[in-house]
Every structure is written in structure tokens, then in C-alpha cells.
């Protein structure tokens, strides 16, 4: 290990300490990169910082970030989720543990349209929370279902986390999106199965919805379901369909999705200029925060690479005597542990670039790796002390105390870990869908280009071997 590599390691440790204290992450990263870079490489660090900044500003994939955020904000305002929630509540009313299922199904479907965890958890909390309290639902499991269900949107595409992760791992957003569907729906199914099974054996946990709160006719229920589902379907077809079919880039699809969401709001008669502008303002603040963090992390990462510490770390991890899957498990555990104190943006931007070369060096498919990391990161929302999901839930359902919410989330985190293990053992869970899309594309290509070889050309093509 050279002096410079050691300097880089020291920079990493100081950074960890500094952000633990609670200093604003972006400015801290820029500052430390500046100071340690200056020691290691002199004034040149300033140019390095500038070049990384302009590099991020020119990245065309990142246009998808504000567009997906905007789409999410507009969907939140459109009241799509309230509609979906009511429709499903009526549909599943007679079931034991109905409200758990309703919460998770609504969160899953809404995850396809948007996926801001805060908005999803808050809305589910406001709508489902009081209902669950009235119906005598188990507090732990209710809080857990809402907090965990609310995080599904970050995994199920479209998701801003996946959008920013793809360039970090140097893979296509399309592939990452396709891969995330499998684990996303699996997780949702596992959540539902878990709550239903527990309610089956202990009906006390989730009694059926009281008769007086049920709808009168099933026809109305079905109609509401249909109307509630239409907007989600439209948005899915417009955005995900366009991306997965390869018709548009992710940024283009996201812009169309935002436009689609605006049209839906107009269709629901809820459009106001004020609302639209507000969504733009919120989008601006969030985008600036995320992408400034991307800039700062890239500057930090570039200094880290320049000092040689990044390569040294990768080589050290690759040289470990563990088998490939052992090192992979170690990496995922590390990311999981980072998820307790940190939120996902810090992990994706700062730590993932340091760990990804190891996964690559071990020969793992980066799309699969990205997907499994996404599932692990989802737990960052559920792992205290920095558990955003609990924080949002506590804000809207004052009756539930934080300790009970944490206890409830812990059960769902176990399911989450099982899901990670499943994806680790059966990569097909993630890779089946992107593989199928690829096979379909290949078949279409073959159908488009039927090569007919003229015999003369074929003869001419035979030239001395390689």
C-alpha cells in the first residue's frame, strides 16, 4: 500500500465520521475531496472537481431523474391512490386480514405509477391507519405492512433509485427496470402471503372489515376497481411499455409519463396551474439535491480513484480466499449494514461505485447485481435508526408509537432478507424478464432481416482461416 492509497483510506474514514456527525453530505464530500485531494495531488484537484461536475451535468440519462420525480409528484396530487385504495378495500372486505392485502396491493400498483416512499406511506397511513385501528387490527403488523408496502415503489419501476443506479453501474436503465419487476412482485406476494397466513392462524390479527363499512353492491365495487385501475394501466403502458419495448429512452418515457400524469389530472377534473407549478417546484428542489449529491460523490470518488485507493480496495477484496458467492454475500451484507445509518442516495452514489468493480471482477452480471442491491437498499427505508418509512408513518398516524412501528417493520425486514437470499440463489427471479425481452427482440430482428445468401458471394467469402 502506497502513501497515496493510505491517504485515500484516511479520507474515506474521515468522511464516514463527518457524515455520522450529521454534516450536510454533499458539502462535506466536496470539502474532504478538496482537502485530501490537495494533499495528494496539489492544485490539480480543483480541475478534477470541475471536470467531474461538468461531466455529470452533460449526462443525458440523468434527464430521467427530474422527469420521473415530476411524474410521481403529479400522480400523488391526482389522488390516484385514494381511488385505488377504496376500490380494493371494498373488493377484499370479507377476507380475514383484508386491510393488509389492500395496503400492499395498493402500494404495489401505485409503485408502478410513481414510487415516492414518503407519499405512499403517508397516504396509506392516513387512509388505512385509522381504519385498521377501528377494526382492531394488530398494531405491529399494521404498521409493518404500511411501512414495508410503501417501500415497494422504490423497487418496482419506474423508480428514481434505479434510474440513478444504472449509470453508476454502467448498465442500461431498460435492463435494470426489467430485472427489478421479478423481485418487486415477489416481495409484494411474500408480504401478502405472510399477512394472510398469520391472519389465517390467528384471526385476531386482522378481522374482516365490519359489515357496516362494506359497500352495498358488488357491481359498484367492480366498477370502482376498474376506474381506479385505468389510470395506472395507462401510465404503465405509456412509460414502462415505451421503455421496455425499446421505443423511447428512459428520459423520453419519463417525460411522456409526466405528460400522461398531467393529462390524467385534467381528466379527473383536478387540474390547477397552481398544483402543476407546485409539483415543478418540489421536483426542482429534490432534483437539485439528488444530482448535487451525485456531483459531490463523483468528485469524491474521482479523488479516491486518483489516489489509487479504489483499485487497491478492489484488488484486496478480489484477492480474498472466499469463493465468489462468499464475497458477494459479504458485499451485500456490507450494503445492508450501510443501510442502517444511511439513506439510499448516499449508498448508491458514494459506496456502490467502490463495491461494483468487485462484483464485476468476480464475473457477476451487473444487471443482476444492480437488482439485488436495489432490494437490499429497500431495507434502508425500514432499518432504524434512519428509517424514513417509520418517520413518515409516525407523522400521519400519531397513535402508533415508534417502537411498535420498528418492531412491525422488523418482521417485514426478515421477509426482505429471504427475498434477497432467493434472488441470490435463483438469479432467474431477476433475470428471467430481461432475458425474455432480449429473446423477443432477437426474434423480431431475425424476422426483419432474412438473409438470403447469393451463392457467388458465399463462395467468395471463404478466405484463409484466422
Amino acid at each position: 500500500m502506497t502513501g497515496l492509497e493510505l491517504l485515500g483510506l484516511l479520507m474515506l474514514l474521515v468522511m464516514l465520521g463527518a457524515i455520522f456527525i450529521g454534516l450536510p453530505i454533499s458539502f462535506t464530500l466536496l470539502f474532504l475531496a478538496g482537502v485530501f485531494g490537495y494533499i495528494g495531488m496539489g492544485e490539480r484537484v480543483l480541475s478534477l472537481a470541475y471536470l467531474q461536475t461538468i461531466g455529470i451535468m452533460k449526462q443525458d440519462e440523468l434527464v430521467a431523474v427530474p422527469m420521473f420525480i415530476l411524474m410521481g409528484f403529479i400522480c400523488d396530487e391526482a389522488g390516484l391512490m385514494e381511488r385505488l385504495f377504496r376500490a380494493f378495500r371494498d373488493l377484499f372486505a370479507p377476507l380475514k386480514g383484508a386491510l393488509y392485502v389492500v395496503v400492499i396491493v395498493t402500494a404495489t400498483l401505485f409503485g408502478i405509477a410513481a414510487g415516492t416512499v414518503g407519499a405512499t406511506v403517508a397516504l396509506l397511513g392516513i387512509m388505512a391507519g385509522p381504519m385498521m385501528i377501528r377494526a382492531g387490527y394488530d398494531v405491529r403488523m399494521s404498521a409493518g405492512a404500511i411501512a414495508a408496502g410503501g417501500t415497494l415503489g422504490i423497487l418496482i419501476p419506474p423508480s428514481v433509485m434505479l434510474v440513478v443506479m444504472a449509470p453508476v453501474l454502467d448498465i442500461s436503465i431498460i435492463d435494470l427496470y426489467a430485472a427489478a419487476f421479478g423481485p418487486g412482485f415477489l416481495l409484494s406476494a411474500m408480504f401478502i402471503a405472510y399477512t394472510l397466513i398469520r391472519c389465517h392462524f390467528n384471526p385476531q390479527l386482522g378481522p374482516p372489515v365490519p359489515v357496516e363499512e362494506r359497500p352495498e353492491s358488488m357491481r359498484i365495487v367492480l366498477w370502482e376497481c376498474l376506474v381506479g385501475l385505468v389510470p395506472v394501466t395507462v401510465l404503465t403502458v405509456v412509460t414502462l411499455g415505451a421503455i421496455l419495448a425499446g421505443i423511447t429512452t428512459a428520459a423520453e418515457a419519463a417525460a411522456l409519463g409526466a405528460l400522461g400524469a398531467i393529462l390524467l389530472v385534467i381528466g379527473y377534473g383536478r387540474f390547477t396551474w397552481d398544483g402543476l407549478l407546485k409539483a415543478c417546484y418540489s421536483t426542482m428542489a429534490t432534483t437539485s439535491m439528488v444530482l448535487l449529491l451525485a456531483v459531490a460523490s463523483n468528485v469524491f470518488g474521482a479523488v479516491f480513484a486518483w489516489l489509487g485507493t479504489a483499485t487497491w480496495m478492489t484488488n484486496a477484496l478480489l484477492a480474498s480466499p472466499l469463493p465468489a458467492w462468499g464475497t458477494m454475500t459479504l458485499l451485500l451484507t456490507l450494503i445492508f449494514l450501510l443501510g442502517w445509518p444511511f439513506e439510499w442516495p448516499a449508498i448508491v452514489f458514494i459506496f456502490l461505485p467502490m463495491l461494483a468493480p468487485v462484483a464485476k471482477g468476480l464475473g457477476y452480471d451487473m444487471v443482476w447485481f444492480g437488482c439485488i442491491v436495489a432490494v437490499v437498499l429497500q431495507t434502508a427505508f425500514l432499518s432504524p435508526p434512519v428509517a424514513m418509512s417509520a418517520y413518515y408513518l409516525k407523522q400521519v398516524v400519531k397513535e402508533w408509537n415508534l417502537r411498535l412501528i420498528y418492531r412491525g417493520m422488523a418482521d417485514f425486514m426478515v421477509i426482505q432478507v429471504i427475498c434477497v437470499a432467493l434472488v441470490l440463489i435463483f438469479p432467474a427471479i431477476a433475470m428471467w424478464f430481461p432475458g425474455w425481452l432480449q429473446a423477443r427482440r432477437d426474434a423480431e430482428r431475425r424476422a426483419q432481416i432474412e438473409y438470403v445468401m447469393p451463392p457467388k458471394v458465399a463462395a467468395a467469402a471463404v478466405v484463409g482461416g484466422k
Partner: protein
Amino acid sequence: QTPPKPILLKGQSTHPASANFHLIFKLWAETVEKMSGGRLKIETLPAGAIVPPFEVFDATSKNVLDVGMAPFGYILGRNTATIPMSHGPLFGMDGQDYWAWYYDGGGMKLLEEFYRDVLKLNVVGFPIPTDYPQGMGWFKKEINSLADLKGLKYRIYGIGAETYGRLGVSVVTIPGGEIVPAMERGVIEGAEWINCEEDKKLGLHQVAKHYYTPGMHEPVTGGQLIINGEVWKKLTPDLQEIIKVASVYATTQRNFSFNRETAHACQDLIKMGVQMHRTPDEILKNFLDEWEKIQGEYATKNPFYKKVIDSQKTYAEQIVPFKLSWFPPYNFAGEYYWKDKVYLQKK
């Protein structure tokens, strides 16, 4: 007496580790180390390791990198003179003549002036010609005349884009990685990339079956091996000479291999059923006519541009007619031996 500590330089290219362009860079560094008896060691990092590809010129100028390897195309927006300094019809010169212009026709002096006074980059550069020559590209349908090309959505780079654009072709410039999907979904109907070898890697034969060559826009792609000015000044004259000579050796050596690799790739494509055609002369002729008009405009607007093409013209005027007169036509003895192996039929 202990041997002096070796000088370590940090270098990065704009290309991934497997690309020919990066392989030249690597071979150059290895050669320098050998020739200097280990006194000079150069780290050759691939694209993105320290700075994004488009920033390599600036990074080397500011000494974030000691050494950079990048094509002039990556700073095309800085000055139109990057075009004749790196590609374009070049007044009939081929890749070899173009390289000769640098070392024998006054190009090196202009290059120095270009960096210092025009681009204002603090670097010393050496020309690294690669990938010569490039085809006109892939099309879904046969192209028999300029009329067939008009209105077509065609992905092409640099001066090709400017020129075909003026000829009424609907040109698009999208990055390499997006060409195949764009072609697949009909966003574009034609696309040029590099040549058989590189296009095959990209998968263009999976989305189009008609491949046309030659093009007039890129008889060669001029890369640049650049060394930070201050770093350069600190090197002893023998090390400076080693750097220069090694660049010539590494470029030639890799280009020999690349030529052979491309030949095999062309054969592979034909075996797969790709139809390779010679670009109709009419298209190439129109291209040159239009390009000369554009070039005239550039030259009026940009004095340095004029200086470069005047120098190239003077050189080409001596070399090209000489080679046309004195060198046996390539096809004469070539066809005597290999006529039935030629896979392109002139239209």
C-alpha cells in the same frame, strides 16, 4: 550507485479497455517502459477511470492526468479545425498520407500552434491515426443513388453529418451504444459507425443487411496522444524522443493487426449473409462537392482552419498526383491475383 527512481505518469484514454484505440495506448506505454529501461512508467487507465471521456483533453491540460489519449472528435465543438486535423476527405490523401502530413508536411508545427494559440490547451500532442478507412454505413434498403438517401434518417458523425444534412438526408447523431436499438425501432434507417470489426461488435448486422463502403467522410480517424506541457518540459530529451518514437511504433503495430482483424470481420459478416456494396460514385461525388462548399465557409470564418487546409492541400498536391502517377494501381496486381475474392461489385 542506486538506479534513479522511475518517473510514474498517470494516463487515461477515452475508450474501453478492449478497443483498438486503447490497445494502442497500452502498447505505447509498454514500449516506452521497455525503451527507457524502466525509467518511465505510464499507467494506462480506460475510459471514465478518473475523468469522463469528453473531458480528457481538459484534464490533461490541467494536469489532472499526465497523459491522455483521445480523438479530436471529442472536442469537435471547440474549433472546426479539429476536422481537417483528424478526418474529412483530406484532398485525396489516405490515412498514411495524412500521418505523413504531420511528420513531413508541417502538420506537427500547426498542431503545436493549434493547442497553444487556438484551443489554449497546455499539452504536447502526437497524432495517432486509427480505424482507417470507414464505411458509409448500414441500411435497411439498397441505396443506389443519392435520391435513395434523401429523406432517410441516417446516423452519421462529424463532417459526414453536416454534409449529408445539406444534401437533404435527415441526419441524426446519436452515441454508438444507441445505434442498434434506434435502428431496430425504426428511429433511424441507416447508420455509420466504424468498420466491419467494430460494427460487428456493436451488432449492426442484426438490424440491417446492406453495408456500403467506402465513405468519404473518414478515410482515417485522427486520435491524439497528449502529454501535459509541464510534465513534458520536465522530461529529459531522450525520454521525449522515446515517447515520440514509441507512439509511431505502437500505432503502426496495432494498426497492422487491426487491419487483419477487420478483414476477417468483413468475411464473417458476409458469411452471415450481409450484403456488402460499393457506394455508388454519384453519392461520393456529390458528397465531395457539398463538402467543398462547407469547407469554403469554414475557411472564411476560421483563419486557422484555412491555414490547416492550405498546408494539407500543398502537401496533397505533391503526394497524391505522384502516387496516382507512379504507384501501380492497387487493383492492378491485386485483381491479377485475387479478382474472384473481391466481395464488392461496383455499381
